[in-house]
């Protein structure tokens, strides 16, 4: 049984209210941090915990906090990235609607650590109902003296603002998010300067994912070292995994990092295995942008090691035979899934979501969608496969923000591991375009 840090009280009736959350030990981290610790001591605990950014990049949060510039007389900002939009990822949505006070408490502790007096939670605009839940939680916390002026008589002031987005995946990229928060189009900024130096309103800013910040109350209550003792190696703590696709029990699960992929996928405590009578064909382990893996590389690495749910183990073998933990969007495909159709679907997503600022991404995502569309619809040629590989290569690394890479990787990896399926679509256009037709040829089923 995994140790629960975030979802321990998720099942408690009324946990979305201040009173119940408080009875379960809520807001003790705010008391402890503000009354007994200096801001630097809080930052130190975050560093010791080793907690890594849970939005997808996996950069150590404490280190990110350490980069924050602190010029005299200039306000500093904390912005929570709740723009969760990576296909396959819905953990922050679940966390915020279920235990909104956990995020509010984390925001207070983190804002105190960074010396911020106005902090923002930028929530994707589609989650209007979640915004209402968060605003209610903030109001409750304020009424109890945990937000506003002179919190708990400590002299620390903090205001929390919930900001709605407008429907744009790109705003999950931190500088695009800041542009959007300033009331502009979500075009990512050139870096440097990094947000830690010039972020929101040209002031030093930290942007952290919901789940990252929600770890802070536990870290303060139990210490960074206790957090670092959970998990495996540099993958410390627990991780929320959003499980979807052809499994018996889709949903959001909190796992201790280091759990085996096999156990996560097949045990009844988690996904419960592939839905009845079907077989595992492929997996996207960390949200749509990470490389897709074929069945034989999912529970074992290429060298035969057990594959674990950790940053290191999932990326074992590099992109040749590995993938990434990413945001923890765990999408499972059984043998009825068509890889070509799914790749076209993802390519269409990235084309739709490209902000259009960099030509390799703006044009390249469109080309990839178009070429994949014609392969899927029976009009492809063998040359198209190489063309896709070439376009993906020319986008990767050549854009201001990582959306370009995110668009290139699913296409490149699908061809790397399922090239025969693409070829079959080209050589058997009639069969491939039958409704529900799926290639069963040489794919390895487990």
């Amino acid at each position, binding site marked *: 049984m995994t140790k629960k840090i975030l979802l321990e009280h998720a099942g408690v009736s009324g946990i979305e209210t201040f009173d119940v959350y408080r009875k379960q030990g809520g807001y003790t981290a705010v008391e402890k941090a503000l009354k007994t610790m200096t801001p630097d001591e809080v930052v130190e605990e975050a560093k010791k915990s080793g907690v890594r950014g849970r939005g997808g990049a996996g950069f150590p949060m404490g280190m990110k906090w350490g980069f924050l510039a602190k010029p005299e007389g200039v306000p500093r900002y904390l912005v929570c990235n709740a723009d969760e939009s990576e296909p396959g990822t819905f953990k922050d949505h679940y966390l915020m609607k279920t235990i909104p006070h956990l995020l509010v408490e984390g925001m207070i502790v983190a804002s105190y650590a960074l010396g911020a007096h106005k902090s923002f939670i930028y929530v994707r605009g589609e989650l209007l109902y979640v915004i209402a839940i968060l605003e209610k939680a903030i109001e409750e916390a304020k009424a109890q003296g945990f937000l506003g002026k002179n919190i708990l008589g400590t002299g620390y002031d903090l205001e929390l603002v919930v900001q709605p987005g*407008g429907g744009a995946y790109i705003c999950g990229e931190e500088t695009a998010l800041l542009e959007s928060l300033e009331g502009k189009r979500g075009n990512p900024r050139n870096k440097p300067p990094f947000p830690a130096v010039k972020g929101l309103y040209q002031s030093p800013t930290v942007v952290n994912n919901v789940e990252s910040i929600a770890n802070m109350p536990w870290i303060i209550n139990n210490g960074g070292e206790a957090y670092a003792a959970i998990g495996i190696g540099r993958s410390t703590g627990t991780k929320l995994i959003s499980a979807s696709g052809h499994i018996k029990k889709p949903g959001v699960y909190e796992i201790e990092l280091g759990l085996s992929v096999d156990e996560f996928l097949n045990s009844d405590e988690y996904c419960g295995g592939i839905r009845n009578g079907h077989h595992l064909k492929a997996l996207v382990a960390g949200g749509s942008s990470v490389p897709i893996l074929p069945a034989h590389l999912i529970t074992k690495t290429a060298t035969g090691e057990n594959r674990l749910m950790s940053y290191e183990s999932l990326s074992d073998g590099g992109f040749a035979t590995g993938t990434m933990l990413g945001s923890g969007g765990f999408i499972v495909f059984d043998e009825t899934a068509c890889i070509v159709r*799914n790749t076209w679907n993802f390519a269409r997503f990235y084309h739709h979501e490209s902000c259009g600022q960099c030509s390799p991404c703006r044009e390249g995502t469109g080309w990839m969608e178009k070429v994949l569309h014609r392969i899927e619809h029976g009009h492809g040629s063998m040359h198209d496969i190489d063309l896709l590989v070439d376009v993906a290569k020319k986008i990767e690394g050549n854009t201001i923000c990582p959306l370009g890479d995110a668009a290139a990787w699913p296409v490149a990896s699908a061809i790397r591991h399922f090239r025969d399926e693409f070829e079959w679509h080209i050589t058997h256009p009639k069969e491939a375009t039958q409704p529900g037709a799926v290639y069963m040829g040489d794919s390895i089923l487990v």
Partner: protein
Amino acid sequence: MTEAPNTVAFTPERLAKAREIIARYPEGRQKSALLPLLHVAQEQWGWLSSEVMDYVAGLLSIQPIEVYEVASFYTMFHLEPVGKHVIEYCRTGPCCLMGGEDVYGYLKQKLGIGAGETTPDGTFTLKEVECLAACGWGPVFQIREKYYMNLTNERIDEIVEELSK
């Protein structure tokens, strides 16, 4: 030159809400209120006409073009009139794995319209959107703030009947 008076205005409640939103941001940063205000405007008028966007620009003391370029960037804002209920269905991978394409096909057939169209009686508009962050509960669509999850043809019959009343 005098301009024609702009007759577009928020209701008193929404105007008070708008003022409260604008006050959330630091001095001189009122433009940050743009997205929240566009949501409030869309709630009142259903879609954002150029008159509405000009009105919002006036509230924030910014140029109308600054509103147009933002409203046209974000997919949630409707720049054309829409029906009473806008059904925004997720077309992205995980929902499709759960049979989304069949379910949405049924929905289109039932309403007799395609994506981007409105029923002749003005009750429903269908809009195709990308991932709504509810992949484990797919297929999914949303109508304003409400999410409808684990959709099946039967569920669609119920929802459409309920909303047609």
